[in-house]
């Protein structure tokens, strides 16, 4: 009986049964935090942090997939809704959905020729990615979509008497720089067209650890200087910070840091105009500075009894600019992550897994092509095939926005601008309409008929619960049949139509700036005036007036008037947190988290089209659509309120 009893108990204990959880992550994007775990314990883990709700979910990989992440999580990379996690001592790179955390694929060492301990993943294109390695003198190339091995790049690094380590990678044009950390003192230059090492940069200090490229095309490299703890010293233990011209590959600046045992890390602000350097404390310097800052930007916390926290991981949110710092505590317990605003104010602190070492920032739904538009085009899901007019109002996100970069070349014509917008819609990339009144006009390949009660039209934006920039949608039937949008526009009525929040017949005039870096003044037909501010931190271009937007003379200078409707600006701003709240309207507007918006897609009905007097337009079909920025507003931290559009689609089950 005793044996039977023991046996029953034995069946109940030992191994925990797993199960797969579904996660509801923030539509506006979140932070994936890779926790390294302990070597040879297999307890690496992934945490997810919702920066809006300030909640954290730990161990999400295991919970979503009923399997372990592996041993020694080394790095995480996010792009277009997918994350790649290199788990070094398991010899695997995972591809996961960045929102559900579900495994989409994996690349194991055995599936490649040379991979041993994968360290970092760098995406070259949708079909090509590189993986560096701690031990292998090869960089592995794989298809990040199919997670299949392609080939390897021989780095030429020694394998005997030393290590062949390659670490982080940063892209610059067609080149990728990778640093040789373990015992190394080089930065290798890889030509991504040739898939070959074409050059190397030799540093005066050992063990380059972290790299970034700034807005001036300078490569910043920090070394840890090796170690020095007695006999067998490697290096002088003095970290160095280098600034290297990415084009000439010449070292322009070599700054020696203090001898320390710190985990040195680099990151930039979203515009890549400022450098964050972690070396015990966190320092911030301008990329034009020629000296190290004397005082930390954020001091590592020091307890009342003098015990100092050691900072380990570093990451900067490319959208908000918030800085995330990991504290590994004793490396054998739940680590702590601290979140700071761009102003250096502490926003939050939370526990994650063991030894948080990497941060990756998932795009919001609006940032991510949830479906593949080009494939959808073949299925008839992409609704528009021609952009007739792209007439953005002034705004820092229109062209040259730091996060996205240049969209349209200087001196571009309206036609080129429209083609670029069409290309962006096909690829699911963002287009900004600028400040109030800015618009885009698109045409359907075939008439879109009224479903009378069903949703007929889908427009994708990038709304967050705290950041809505509603756009008003107008539709047109090709009455004269000439295929041009030269008939009558009908506004699609939204929740605010007919209320005090909505103004029809609104006109706003922008005055072309006369000098670089100027605010852009506006006046409206309601007696209002203001400016679209010049905000170099978001966009350092000389002017936010686009080349293809023609200006006409007026007594007050060259100007352009936009006509349409206006929505009331609802935003609030909190100076203490430097955050703005831009609440959504109930329904009927794009880039707005209303009841008709799911996963950033706003569902619209032709039945809601109204005439200029507010009567139902009773359209049976439409051929053109125009989307305009609805609000006249400007927030201190984000600048003008501008509607963003990623595409215009036909409703389909896959989008619901």
């Amino acid at each position, binding site marked *: 009986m005793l*044996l039977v009893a*023991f*046996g029953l*108990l*034995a069946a109940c*204990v*030992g*191994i925990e049964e*797993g199960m797969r959880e579904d996660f509801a992550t923030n539509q506006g994007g979140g932070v994936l935090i890779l926790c390294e*775990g302990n070597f040879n*314990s*297999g*307890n690496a*883990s992934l945490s997810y942090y919702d920066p809006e709700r300030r909640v954290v979910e*730990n*161990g999400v990989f*295991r919970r979503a*997939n*009923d399997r*372990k*992440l*592996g*041993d020694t999580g080394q790095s995480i990379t996010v792009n277009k809704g997918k994350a790649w996690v290199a*788990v070094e*001592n*398991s*010899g695997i790179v995972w591809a996961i959905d960045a929102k559900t955390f579900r495994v989409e694929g*994996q690349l*194991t*060492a*055995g599936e490649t020729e040379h*991979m*041993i301990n994968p360290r970092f993943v760098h995406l070259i294109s949708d079909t090509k990615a590189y993986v560096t390695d701690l*031990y292998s003198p090869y960089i592995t190339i794989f298809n990040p979509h199919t997670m299949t091995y392609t080939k390897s790049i021989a780095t030429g690094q020694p*394998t*005997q*008497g030393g290590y062949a380590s390659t670490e982080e990678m940063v892209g610059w044009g067609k080149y990728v720089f990778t640093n040789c950390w373990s*015992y190394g003192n080089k930065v290798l230059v890889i030509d991504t067209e040739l898939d070959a090492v074409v050059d190397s940069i030799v540093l005066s200090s050992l063990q380059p650890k972290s790299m970034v490229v700034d807005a001036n095309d300078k490569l910043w490299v920090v070394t840890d200087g090796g*170690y020095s*703890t*007695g*006999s*067998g010293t*490697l290096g002088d233990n003095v970290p160095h910070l280098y600034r290297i011209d990415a084009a000439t590959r010449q070292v322009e600046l070599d700054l020696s840091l203090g001898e320390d*045992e710190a*985990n040195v890390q680099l990151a930039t602000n979203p515009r890549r105009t400022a450098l964050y350097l972690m070396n015990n404390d966190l320092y911030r310097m301008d990329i034009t500075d020629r000296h190290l800052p004397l005082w930390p930007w954020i001091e590592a916390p020091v*307890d009342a009894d003098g*015990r*100092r*926290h*050691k900072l380990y991981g570093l990451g900067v949110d490319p959208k908000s600019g918030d800085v995330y710092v990991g*504290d590994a*505590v*004793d*490396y*054998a*317990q*739940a680590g702590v992550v601290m979140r700071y605003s761009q102003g250096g104010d502490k926003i939050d602190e939370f526990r994650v897994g*063991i*030894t948080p070492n990497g941060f990756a920032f998932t795009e919001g739904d609006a940032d991510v092509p949830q479906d593949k538009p080009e494939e959808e085009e073949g299925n008839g899901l992409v609704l528009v095939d021609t952009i007739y007019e792209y007439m953005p109002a002034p705004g820092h996100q229109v062209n040259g926005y730091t996060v996205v970069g240049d969209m349209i070349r200087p001196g571009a014509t309206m036609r080129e601008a429209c083609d670029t917008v069409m290309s962006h819609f096909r690829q699911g990339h963002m287009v900004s309409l600028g400040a109030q009144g800015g618009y885009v006009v698109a045409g359907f390949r075939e008439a879109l008929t009224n479903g009378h009660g069903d949703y007929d039209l889908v427009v994708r934006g990038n709304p967050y619960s705290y950041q809505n920039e509603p756009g008003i949608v107008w539709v047109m039937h090709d009455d004269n049949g000439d295929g041009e949008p030269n008939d009558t526009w009908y506004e699609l009525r939204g929740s605010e139509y007919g209320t005090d929040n909505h103004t029809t017949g609104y006109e706003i005039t922008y005055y072309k700036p006369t000098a670089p870096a100027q605010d852009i003044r506006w006046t409206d037909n309601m007696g209002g005036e203001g400016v679209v501010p010049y905000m170099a931190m978001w966009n350092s271009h000389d002017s936010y007036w686009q080349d293809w937007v023609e200006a006409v003379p007026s007594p007050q200078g060259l100007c352009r008037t936009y006509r349409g409707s206006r929505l009331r600006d609802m935003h609030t701003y909190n100076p203490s947190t430097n955050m703005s709240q831009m609440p959504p309207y109930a329904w009927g507007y794009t880039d707005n988290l209303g009841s008709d918006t799911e996963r950033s897609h706003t569902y619209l009905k032709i039945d809601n089209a109204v005439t200029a007097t507010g009567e139902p337009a009773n359209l049976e079909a439409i051929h053109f659509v125009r989307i305009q920025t609805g609000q006249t507003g400007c927030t201190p931290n984000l600048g003008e309120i501008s509607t963003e559009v990623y595409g215009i689609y036909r409703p389909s089950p896959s989008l619901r």
Partner: protein
Amino acid sequence: MMPLVDVPDADSIGAEVVLREVSVAAQRKLGDTGVEKTVLDTTKLHRHVANSLADVLTEQTTLFVKSYGRGTESTAEFRGTSASHTQVVWNGMKINSPMLGTVDFSYIPSYFVDQATLLHGASSLNLTGGGLGGAIELSTKPDFTTKGWKGMAVQGVGSYKTVDDYLRLDYTTERWSSSTRVAYGHAKNDYEYLNRDKMVDERDEWGTIVSSYHPREKNKSGYFDDVNAMHDIHYRDERGNTLGASVWYGYSLRGLPFLSVDYRDEAEFCNEHREETWRSVVGWDHKRRLYTLGVKGGYSSQDIAYDYTTTRQTQQTDITHSRSRAQTGFTTVEANYYPLSNLMMTATVGGRYAKVRSRDKSPFHIGDNYNKGRGEWDAALTVRYRPWQRVSLSALVRGEGYGAVVVPVIPAGFVDVVIYKPWNLVVKASVARNYRYPSMDDLFFQPGGNPDLKPEHGFTYDGGLEWDTKGRRVRVKGNVTAYDSRIKDWILWTPNAKGFWVPSNVRRVHNYGLETMHDVEVKLGRQWLAACTMNYAFTPSINEGKGVNSSDASRGKQLCYVPRHSANIGVRLEWQGWRLNYSWVYYSERFTTTSNETQYITGRIQPYFMSNAMLEKRLPLRRVELGLKAVVRNLLGTEYVTVLSRPMPGRNFEGFVEVRF
């Protein structure tokens, strides 16, 4: 724990267990005053040749043995302390690695030990210093009782291509005793297990996952080849002199098993540990009516090679390449003086010199880790006195030092009182201060070694009851001990920001709890014997250090991998040459993080029960005795892990054929 009477060795040839008539009111040994100890004799040690000492400690003591399978590192911990707090002495020589401070019990075949005495807590100071948890004394004993030749050969074959061989040859005369033992163990150890840490995804033609399952995988790189050979020779004369020499050679080649989360191919990697050890001890003991004198000296060397290489490149590539050699010489002198029948004085003095050379190539270091020598010494004086027949007292002072460091004087006091003679019911208590000085790796290893480390130190208080009573057919003995120990300046290795590990005196640990052991033997008629041993330990081992910073949530938490509850039960039935052994081991939940996180699945090791069984039949033949044994490990096929990402084997078998003459 301490037997009041001698227990016959039931494992002798043709053993038919007959309990010797004893006087239950026998005088307690003065030398054992207040001592908490567990004695493992050959009945418990020599179950089968595949057992290492780690297996025996797991199944039959309250020690926690951290191991992840046969042929892997196995360390033993007393009372929630660390492995380096367990001091181990073999035939008078301390065999803790001078590099690590620990002993890997998987390298010690249980058949190479004739008696193991576990001294718990403060009691360890009667043997050696540094045992903050306790000490284990391992002995090979000359047998002068059976003259002439005596031998034993065992062949074992088991699951996972396991082979075990053992040969022992003894020759004894009135004055000489010679014993030679050789053991060989080999296994591919490629057991299959359900890998719950991985998942195989099946996809449709569009790449969509349509189903997933946990794969069945084989343990990779778990092979081992262990060879051990030992020779003991002793000479005695009628004037109380005994000369002895023991030489022990061991060679081991072991693959280090892959983690369950490793996706690499075993064929492309070699992750291998080799170790060659020589230990030799010579001694002289002289016994007279009023005193005894013992002198011992010895030498040991330990060569360790660790290679982690891959053939993933065009040529073999070293990932880690490590070599170390530790050589140790020692000498001790011990004198016992009995001026009165109720007074005993013991003095010991010893010296030890260890030299270590360690080199490696790893991602964090190339070259000499260190090449250092270190002298160590210790001296102790003990006075034991029995003022009344039922009361014994003992006081001890010990001095120790290493290099130029002299640790403060270590005092200890012991008392025991017989409170009920018919049951030999004794209440005992002890208090002691203890120190453990850093190992040479702690001090010198590059990178990371910290020459500024201080010795770990603390106070230990023990108190308990012990009983031993016997009727005509039944014998019951046992004990229960409560203890409280606080260790300061606990040395902990943690990774620094550059990735290599650094030791520091960061912890204060409060160990307290309860240990209890019960032995029951019942003679059922002429041919039947039933015996049962039960051990239970309640082991809170709490970190009370202030932590590395204010975010440190480890304060007040149980130390990693220390179970709060552990228990084992061993049942033995004997009948006409048949013997059935059943053992059951239980460990409660263990935490893998210092903050005892429970929100992660990897934050704890689930509790588990383990059952092993052995059936044996002895067949006396004309000139020899034949023995047949069948062992079933993990009898119930439990899925379990003892260490994160290290699945253990399911039900497995081994059979043995044994010939004795």
